[in-house]
């Protein structure tokens, strides 16, 4: 059998080579289908990886607790509109829930920052020292606030890359410089390493950090002392995120004296939840892709079936001769199946080639990240093989069922 299969493959390639135009047109469906799938999957995978990286840039095993909406006589304010979370909530959570590695808090406001003759409006965040470690902020130069800075509500600031770019000339050293935030002078003690876009697509590097105590007492002006914009917590292990979030909910409900029938006055989101939302988007994309791929492979497969039926008719006499000299039904069946699979596999390989080129071009021209995984290529290859096999079956069977006498006499 191996010699038979080998020769049949060679014969099939030669037969296709003879009718290059016909073979090319037949393969077109498969080429386009596989090419589109490869290109789209690699774009999808690239986008997914970028999103995953953004989710990871939030920090490690992070839980975010936002104040809930207020309801005043049935009029609901937006999320975060209420002042329901406080510094003491944050401290108490850490004390009561051993699963939590740390808790932190932050409060933000957009303010004008001035350095010499340059100015920029950016989000100023008063943060607890633990916030930086929870969110995995690293430093490009300088370092975090000292404990003393926090206790004395010192006027010190950390700047993100975007802010540095807007306030300082290239080559100018920000660390040690004096800037003004809402007209209050601050000394820059650190520049943060870049993080890029957040999972929601906002620029995480457009940020200024100052100690929470300083923000409360010297910059923001607060109605309720100790109220925070958001609480942050982190766990040691990613598996603990769910149960930690549940425990946080219980503790906060208790602290806020909520009755069982009352809704939470806060919202808890874990890093895993945020990741899932993003994955959901890419799943929709995958389903769509799968549909497109199925349709084009179906069309390509029908093309192959069609051309094979023509081929069987054209070569009826040849089939008769082959049967006369001893070809069994399965020999004829295998021969035509191999021809179908050669068509679809050559088409598939061309499609893979075009798909990879398309993905590369997308990266070069549009700057979208693309990932071409070996798995995708392998699946595309196997699929094109399967299409050939499936759509070759009917014509091949038709050929194998020919009666040798009728086939020999066919004009």
């Amino acid at each position, binding site marked *: *059998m191996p*010699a*038979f299969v*080998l*020769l049949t493959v060679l014969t099939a390639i030669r037969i296709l080579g*003879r009718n290059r135009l016909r073979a090319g047109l037949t393969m077109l469906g498969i080429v386009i289908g596989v090419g589109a799938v490869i290109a789209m999957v690699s774009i999808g995978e690239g986008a997914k990886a970028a999103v995953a990286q953004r989710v990871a840039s939030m920090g490690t095993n992070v839980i975010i607790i936002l104040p809930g909406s207020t309801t005043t006589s049935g009029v609901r304010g937006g999320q975060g509109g209420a002042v329901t979370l406080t510094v003491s909530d944050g401290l108490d959570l850490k004390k009561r829930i051993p699963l939590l590695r740390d808790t932190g808090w932050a409060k933000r406001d957009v303010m004008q920052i001035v350095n010499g003759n340059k100015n920029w409006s950016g989000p100023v965040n008063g943060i607890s020292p633990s916030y930086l470690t929870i969110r995995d902020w690293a430093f490009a130069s300088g370092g975090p606030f000292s404990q003393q800075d926090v206790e004395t509500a010192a006027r010190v600031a950390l700047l993100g890359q975007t802010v540095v770019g807007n306030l300082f000339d290239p080559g100018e050293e920000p660390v040690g410089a004096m800037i003004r935030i809402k007209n209050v002078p601050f000394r820059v003690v650190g520049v943060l390493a870049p993080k890029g876009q957040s999972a929601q697509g906002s620029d995480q590097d457009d940020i200024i950090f100052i100690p929470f105590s300083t923000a409360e007492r010297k910059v923001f002006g607060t109605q309720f002392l100790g109220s925070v914009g958001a609480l942050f917590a982190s766990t040691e292990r990613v598996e603990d995120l769910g149960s930690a979030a549940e425990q946080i909910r219980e503790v906060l409900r208790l602290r806020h004296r909520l009755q069982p029938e009352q809704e939470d006055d806060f919202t808890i989101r874990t890093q895993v939840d945020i990741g899932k939302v993003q994955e959901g988007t890419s799943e929709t994309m995958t389903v769509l892709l799968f549909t497109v791929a199925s349709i084009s492979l179906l069309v390509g497969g029908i093309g192959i079936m069609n051309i094979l039926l023509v081929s069987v008719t054209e070569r009826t*006499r*040849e089939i*008769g*001769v*082959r*049967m*006369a*000299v*001893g*070809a*069994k*039904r399965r*020999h004829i069946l295998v021969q035509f199946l191999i021809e179908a699979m050669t068509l679809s596999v050559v088409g598939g390989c061309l499609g893979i080639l075009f798909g990879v080129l398309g993905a590369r071009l997308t990266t070069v021209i549009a700057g979208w990240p693309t990932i071409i995984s070996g798995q995708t290529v392998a699946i595309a290859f196997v699929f094109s093989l399967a299409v050939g096999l499936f759509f070759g079956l009917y014509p091949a069977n038709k050929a194998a069922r020919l009666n*040798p*006498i009728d086939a*020999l006499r066919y004009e």
Partner: protein
Amino acid sequence: MPPLIRCEDLWKIYSLGDVEVQALRGLTLSIEQGEFVAIMGSSGSGKSTLMNILGCLDQPTRGHYWLNGIEVAALRADQLADLRNRQIGFVFQSFNLIPRTSALENAQLPLFYRGLPLREQRGLAMAALGRVGLQGREQHYPTQLSGGQQQRVAIARALVTSPSLLLADEPTGNLDSESSREIMTILDRLNREQGITIILVTHEADIATYAERELVIQDGRVRTDRRTRPGLTPSPGGV
């Protein structure tokens, strides 16, 4: 030793809609190993049907056919294919070479289905082409060969498996007289020198004279069975 071919009361009935056509009507026949038999008959006599059955391409409706002692009527399609591959070589009027395929590969075809190693297939096919005088033309395509040469490739294809029976259905029907003589000389030599049994279907009397026995089929039965002479030369003025 049993005869190579023994047919007993062969019937072949085709139904074409309501009409029944009796192509063979109780034909009985016996051919010994090494004979060179010409089968003649007008069209519609049943000779094509007989050839199909003798060539194991078709099964009789009733009756028995033993080839080399094997009862063919009892075999399944795959077994028939095997039998054709091992015992029978076909030569057709229209050559029936596979187009755009070299002479060598055409001659190789039956071995291809026997699953022999490639090298062995090549060797046997080269030898068969040599026996019909086509050395040096192994790589030629059918379109690059004359009719006589194409028919010789077909004979090489029939010979390559060393069959016990060679069925030639009007082998010279599409050839000029010179090529016809060439082909008949080759068949004659194969019969005399290698003892291959040859059954030749023809409607040309001068071609039939190459054979040593002449069967005339009429209305699905053997009408005359005449022995000419063993080992022969064409009759004067023939071909």
